[in-house]
């Protein structure tokens, strides 16, 4: 059966057979980099189009439908437009930091891709602290935003950056705590171990109520961390024009925009890995025949299906809920999410010790 695992294995053995190990390693790094960039480009195109279509259908509209069949090439046309545009740098800006910020944002998004398992045995870097690595790297992303906001020399950008900073720093706590509850249940930080622990059922089913609570908290917290509505105070269009990327145009804007969508993909992929079993097919107890049928669906399809379902849920939030005020936002985190997730973590720990899960 053709799978990602066998493809990577055969490429690896062929390269090691033909070249010396060092050259083979370098070539593999290049292949991985090219694959990652290709994935980013496709994801950017698909997610932007998906966002616009979902938004349109939820607002009883048609969405883009002119460029290509059913408007499928709309995001491609937008990208070409952005590439052709001039990248302006404002006069009073700190030019070096202004030009550096989009790359920082992009590099952080790229680094986050490393520990995600896309299919069975298909992972760039199975680091043994996977979950911790993700929360560490994602805490750098705020730096890119602060840098962009500061260097633009624009009051809207600065306000957006400040809001985004306060928001990301506070929502990281509850996101981290809800991730911890899964770490407690699986007993490992490594993403492949966490996926492996779900071979007889996903955590959201096995861990019942406490895990469902932590999943809800996780999805709220990551919506806030990726600066999406209803938590999009950092780029609130009606208040701050565009927040921290007001002054960006052309390719630099495209990079920031792309990184935002990549971040959404990554947090949803992590959510799918932790709560929905990553690439694990849906298995129900002792229904042997049902489980066998589910095994026939390729693992990569399972992974992408779950991830895109979560992305859809986050888009659903965006087109349903109104934006919060900054005090409401901080109140939600410090008075509701954080206490609940702390108590929930205790519950999960008790559950894990007593073995009260399936």
């Amino acid at each position, binding site marked *: 059966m053709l799978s990602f695992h066998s493809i990577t294995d055969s490429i690896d053995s062929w390269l090691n057979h033909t070249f010396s190990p060092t050259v083979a390693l370098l070539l593999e790094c290049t292949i991985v980099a090219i694959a990652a960039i290709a994935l980013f480009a496709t994801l950017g195109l698909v997610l932007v189009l998906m966002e616009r279509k*979902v938004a349109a*259908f*939820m*607002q*009883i*509209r*048609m969405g883009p439908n002119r460029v290509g069949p059913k408007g499928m090439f709309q995001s491609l046309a937008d990208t070409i437009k952005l590439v052709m545009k001039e990248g302006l740098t404002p006069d009073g800006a700190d030019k070096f930091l202004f030009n550096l910020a989009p790359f920082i944002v992009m590099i952080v998004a790229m680094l986050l891709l490393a520990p995600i398992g896309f299919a069975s045995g298909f992972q760039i870097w199975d680091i043994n602290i996977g979950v911790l690595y993700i929360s560490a790297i994602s805490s750098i992303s705020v730096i890119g935003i602060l840098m962009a906001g500061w260097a633009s020399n624009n009051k809207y950008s600065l306000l957006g950056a400040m809001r985004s900073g306060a928001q990301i720093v506070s929502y990281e706590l509850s996101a981290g705590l809800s991730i911890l509850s899964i770490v407690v249940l699986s007993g490992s930080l490594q993403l492949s171990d966490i996926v492996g622990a779900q071979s007889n059922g996903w955590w959201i089913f096995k861990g019942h109520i406490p895990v469902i609570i932590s999943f809800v908290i996780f999805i709220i917290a990551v919506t806030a961390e990726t600066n999406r509505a209803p938590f999009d105070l950092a780029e609130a269009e009606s208040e701050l024009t565009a927040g921290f990327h007001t002054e960006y145009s052309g390719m630099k804007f495209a990079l920031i925009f792309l990184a935002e969508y990549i971040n959404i993909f990554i947090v949803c992929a992590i959510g799918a890995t932790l709560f929905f079993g990553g690439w694990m097919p849906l298995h129900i107890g002792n229904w042997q025949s049902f489980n066998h049928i589910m095994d026939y669906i390729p693992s990569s399809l399972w992974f992408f299906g779950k991830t895109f379902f979560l992305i859809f849920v986050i888009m*659903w*939030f965006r*087109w*349903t*809920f109104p934006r919060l005020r900054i005090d409401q936002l901080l109140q939600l985190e410090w008075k*509701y999410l954080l206490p*609940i997730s702390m108590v929930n973590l205790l519950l999960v720990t008790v559950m894990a010790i007593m073995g009260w899960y399936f």
Partner: protein
Amino acid sequence: MFLKDYITDIYKGVKSLLIGMRRTGYYFTHHKEIITQQYPDNREELNLPTRFRGEVILLHDENNEHACTGCTACELACPNGTIKIITKFDVSPEGKKKKALDTFIYHLELCTMCNLCVVACPTDAIVMAQNFEHSVYDRSKLTKKLNKPGSKIREGIE
């Protein structure tokens, strides 16, 4: 009782959020609710709602007769001077002079489609039409003369 309030707060919040999500989810799955029209493609069978207003027209019947008495009520009702009525004096066969419409000038470029002139008209001579393709290359073409050449007032309208 603090804890009870806290939990009811959370319950109510989650419930109201779910109600909102159910509405958008309903629209997402029911594509026939879509009200957007594919305008240049469906120009022939364009389905405009009855309340849509595109321009003011003066109704003429098959005898090229209209119902405007030239009373200038519409001109007075218009908030931004869109309508200008020029009157003349018709001489009836008995030799009596009677005020009548000479030219109904309508500045489409000033009109806000507020419908006040139609409401003000005592004889229901003018109505709002639904044509909206008004773009022209010259602004002066938007100043229109609404009564057709050779038209006259219908019999029996005072």
